[in-house]
């Protein structure tokens, strides 16, 4: 900090610190804390208070009924009805004076109350996200290796450009492209129909979209880049002579990868896995577009519904925090397994 003041003076340093503080507190820490706080309470009315509220509602209904009668009434009935209305109104006023607003109750109920089904969806989502990560790792490893070690510089640049181009197209549109391929009357089913294997008239098409595999394919497709690039960056720094040496000393291809390439690329592999897992566990767009409610929910869709369909923000916040915890645990686990620090992540 002293060197900052020495170079830029007090005024600028204060400005930098102020900006960083606004970002740190206003955009990162406080939102998370408020989300945590929100997940820890719910609104509740004590049982007797609930009865009271019900009684007040009933009275209001009776009053409106009586007023309706009064408008039709004639002669002495009017006075009679008005007296009854006044009596009811008095009772309402009396009860409302002692009525209590719903109180906030703090506790873990929003977490504990998660139903069996929702918990199952949570476990499934985490499991699927891991599977997507593993799949992406297997799919991308050869590509990253080829681009980093085997290809000539010009070819490598072309390879990387080819990887980036699909990524400039929006995630939703990328997934949408897969929807068109896997749909009931999509490209694959049309091909099968052409072969005479399925019949659209009889609706015997293969319901790809209802299989979890459809989401996997689209997700791997959507997040491939986040796996390839970190791996490519670390593999590129590997000296090619090491590969030659391993080969000259008689190591098989597998052994070379296992003992030379993978240990060297470990930080990149870890970062790729972390990014892919985080993106797929929190992915809202992919399952929403692909499954459209037919293939079972992912946890992210559940969270969305808590907020915008059941309007239960407290439970939604609890679910969101659960997902965040799962991601944090995964990140630390991978960092531990790969023996890399937080500093390695940001390359």
């Amino acid at each position: 900090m002293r060197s900052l003041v020495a170079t830029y003076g007090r005024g600028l340093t204060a400005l930098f610190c102020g900006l960083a503080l606004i970002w740190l507190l206003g955009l990162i820490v406080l939102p998370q804390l408020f989300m945590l706080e929100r997940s820890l309470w719910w609104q509740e009315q004590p049982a007797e208070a609930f009865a009271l509220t019900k009684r007040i509602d009933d009275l209001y209904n009776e009053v409106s009924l009586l007023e309706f009668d009064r408008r039709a009434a004639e002669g002495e009935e009017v006075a009679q009805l008005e007296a009854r209305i006044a009596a009811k109104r008095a009772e309402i006023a009396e009860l409302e004076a002692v009525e209590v607003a719903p109180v906030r109750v703090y506790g873990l109920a929003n977490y504990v109350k998660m139903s069996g089904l929702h918990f199952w969806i949570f476990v499934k989502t985490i499991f699927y996200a891991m599977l997507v990560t593993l799949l992406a790792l297997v799919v991308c490893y050869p590509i990253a290796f080829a681009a980093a070690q085997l290809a000539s510089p010009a070819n490598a640049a072309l390879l990387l450009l080819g990887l980036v181009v699909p990524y400039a197209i929006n995630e939703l549109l990328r997934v949408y492209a897969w929807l068109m391929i896997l749909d009931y009357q999509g490209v694959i089913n049309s091909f099968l129909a052409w072969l005479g294997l399925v019949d659209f008239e009889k609706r015997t098409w293969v319901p790809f979209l209802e299989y979890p595999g459809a989401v996997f394919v689209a997700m791997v497709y959507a997040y491939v880049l986040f796996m390839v690039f970190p791996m490519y960056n670390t593999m590129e720094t590997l000296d090619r002579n090491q590969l030659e040496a391993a080969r000259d000393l008689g190591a098989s291809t597998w052994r070379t990868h296992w003992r030379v390439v993978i240990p060297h690329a470990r930080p990149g592999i870890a970062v790729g896995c972390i990014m892919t897992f985080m993106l797929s566990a929190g992915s809202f767009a992919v399952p929403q577009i692909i499954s459209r409610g037919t293939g079972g929910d992912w946890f992210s869709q559940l969270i969305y519904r808590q907020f915008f369909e059941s309007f239960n923000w407290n439970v939604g916040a609890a679910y969101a925090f659960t997902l965040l915890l799962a991601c944090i645990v995964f990140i630390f686990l991978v960092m531990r397994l790969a023996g890399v620090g937080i500093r390695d992540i940001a390359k």
Partner: protein
Amino acid sequence: MAAPPERRWGEAVLNLYIVVFFVYLFAPLLVMSLAAFNDFQYPSVTQWRGWTLRWFGELARDVRLQQGLINSLLIAMGVIAISLPCGLAGALILTRLESRWNGLLYGILVSPILTPGIILGISTLILWRNLGVPGGLFLACVAQSSFIASYCMLLFMARLQRQDRTLEDAALDLGASNLMVFRRITLPFLTPTIATAAVIGFLQSIENYNTTVFAIGGQWTLVTEIGSRFRFGLTPVINVIGVIFVVITIVCAVIWTVLRQRERQMTIR
């Protein structure tokens, strides 16, 4: 020196794999683009009713999508205005701070990149709801900035680590004011990174869906509007947007390649 047959096989398999992989990458885009020219009311390539450009016209008349694009651009401007200064401030502090809190501070400032987007959106929504601000363009802007600022910070840090600090010291010794050092030495040194950070921030902001969909409230951006069309009926207009994205990307990629090649030729000479 001929490679042993085993290795040649290995390379053939790998090359085949690369080809398959790129088919996997590009075939879906081709299918999507083709459907934009199909004269059929549902997006499809298998039920071909002839070539048409009518969906381009429909897009030109689609007011909601146009408004969405304008909103996306507004948000992106806001995001750049917030993220660049914050990211730069964070980077300057982290590269200079010699304290045991450095690691923790770094961890917190990088954490939004590692946080699922929906959670960034949700937490921002909850915080600002308490302050009485409902979802909308402003919140989308704030929510996106939290993680885009982290990307900017990483870019600035990478650049600052290569900075020659003696230049600044020399300027100070020669009597430059602090402000002048920042304006005449630090900022010019960072200019290329500022441009890169602005472009990356812009793209990230335009592309974003997961965070925005929670923070946008009753407003919409181009991407959230596309997202809601998936629920309420799709027409090939969406494919037209895809085609436009593809064309813009390819044009940019070609320009980039040409520029790079020219640059290389210049350095060779």
